[in-house]
């Protein structure tokens, strides 16, 4: 049984010019211990589909799905209270802007212990010990002292480590990382990706990485889903995607990578491709 299973997920937003379909018939499965990358350009619906699966979209969004289960439980019929028990505990999420996703008014120690207070029945002292242990596992030096710091006292890379520690606080079964390294420098990106992969292997959790960066995909994923304008274009294991991409869109994306360029100019095939051509090979 898959950890997360989504079939035919559709998300619509009501706009002044009629309904806008941000996600159109997305289906995916993630197993325990598997790393799935969802890759696409901005507006491809990669973040929205994951937010919808977790029930984090505002009421203006109309979410429909044929199947939406986590660990065998139907997420569609679940009450909000029930869903809140799962989210943050069994499913955790980390976001793009580490500094913006932490509350500037509270110390990082308070914020990580808050998760433990809500989802576990550990005592105050046990929570503190667990927080220190978590900070150590994500490689934050001097955890005792660091727990008393505010987000603005830490660098972007350190804040992302705090976010990862918070996400891992309750040993989640599934971690969703939405552009975890986009705001970070390459050297820090490498550290964070290595850390995520190490923790993923240690805990055997499922990991979904949402990214627009083909480099991140190449460095992390087992399986890849390519999305464009809310629809899935291609699904493949990472090696076949890079060595023998099937869809015209994936081919165009890979050709546009500067490191694959052969001539003076980069090929910009996506500019000439129409939506119809891109969707022609799309999976349904």
């Amino acid at each position, binding site marked *: 049984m898959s950890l997360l299973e989504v079939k035919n997920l559709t998300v619509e937003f009501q706009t002044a010019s009629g309904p806008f379909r941000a996600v159109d018939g997305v289906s995916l499965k993630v197993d325990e211990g598997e790393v799935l990358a969802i890759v696409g350009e901005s507006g491809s619906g990669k973040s929205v589909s994951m937010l919808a699966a977790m029930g984090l979209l505002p009421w203006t969004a109309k979410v429909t799905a044929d199947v939406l289960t986590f660990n065998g439980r139907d997420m569609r019929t679940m009450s909000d209270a029930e869903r809140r028990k799962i989210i943050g505990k069994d499913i955790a999420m980390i976001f793009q802007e580490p500094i913006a996703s932490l509350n500037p008014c509270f110390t990082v120690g308070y914020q990580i212990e808050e998760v433990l207070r809500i989802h576990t029945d550990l005592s105050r002292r046990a929570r503190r010990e667990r927080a220190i242990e978590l900070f150590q596992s994500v490689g934050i030096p001097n955890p005792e002292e660091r727990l008393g710091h505010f987000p603005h006292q830490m660098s972007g890379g350190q804040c992302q480590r705090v976010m990862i520690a918070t996400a891992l606080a309750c040993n989640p079964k599934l971690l969703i990382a939405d552009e975890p390294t986009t705001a970070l420098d390459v050297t820090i990106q*490498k550290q964070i990706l290595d850390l995520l992969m190490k923790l993923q292997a240690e805990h055997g959790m499922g990991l979904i990485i949402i990214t627009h960066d083909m480099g991140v995909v*190449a*460095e992390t994923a087992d399986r890849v889903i390519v999305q464009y304008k809310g629809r899935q274009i291609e699904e493949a294991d*990472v090696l076949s995607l890079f060595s023998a991409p099937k869809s015209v869109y994936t081919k165009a994306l890979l050709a546009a990578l*500067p*490191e694959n360029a052969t001539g003076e100019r*980069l090929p910009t095939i996506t500019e000439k491709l129409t939506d119809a051509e891109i969707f022609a090979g799309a999976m349904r």
Partner: protein
Amino acid sequence: MTPVLEAKNLKRDYHIPGGLLKPSKTVHAVKGVSFKVEQGKTLAIVGESGCGKSTVARMVTMIDPITSGEMLIDGRRIDIASEPLTPEMRSKVQIVFQNPYGSLNPRKKIGDILTEPLVINTKVPAGERRDRAMAMLKKVGLEEKHYGRYPHMFSGGQRQRVAIARALMLNPRLLVLDEPVSALDLSVQAQVLNLLADLQDEFQLTYVFISHDLSVVRHIADDVMVMYFGEAVEYGSRDQVFNDPKHDYTKTLFAATPRVDVDAIRARIERRKRVA
């Protein structure tokens, strides 16, 4: 031929005033860098956040005065701390910023954004300003109908085209590009990089290209300077720096850049299997 831009031992300090209990502090943002860019060439400055690359950009664009050292633009010594900036000097260097969502005034139409540099720095009459803006729109791959629209009606890539068009309105000699493609999608990034290359060929433009993305730098640069904590730790031609990096930091940087070739992916999967 005199290089378009020459910097000798360029330094920039920022003084942070102290408070009642806090002593004042001096931050040495740039600790003496020297470089030279010939006409029609591209110098890429690489480094992580806080290494001083944007401070260099601010000095080159004459936004920030230099603390010490010497900067020559077109063979002429520039020191905005001691002499006021003339419109003629200002039009020699223009800048394109990273985030096209933040660098265009949302309350101005594209036409006004493009003609503003002419209004400020030249005495070109209104009719000609309009003609020049129209011509520039076409040059950067936009259309005349975009003249009367507002920035929010454009995508990120189109906005960056507008920002590039604005920078070119004064026919600059030197264009400073501060992370011009890092906020853009992959396919749009390719389009903007191609546009920059086309414009460089057409106008013999000189670029100072600031980036943290080594794959982009490798594609576009003639010379590369790697900065680390305010110092230039490596400076040379692109092939020199990429094929034979000397400094440890440059090597770390290369090692940290994700690799997208099939062999690297295969090796990673093998490693993962062994661990599991």
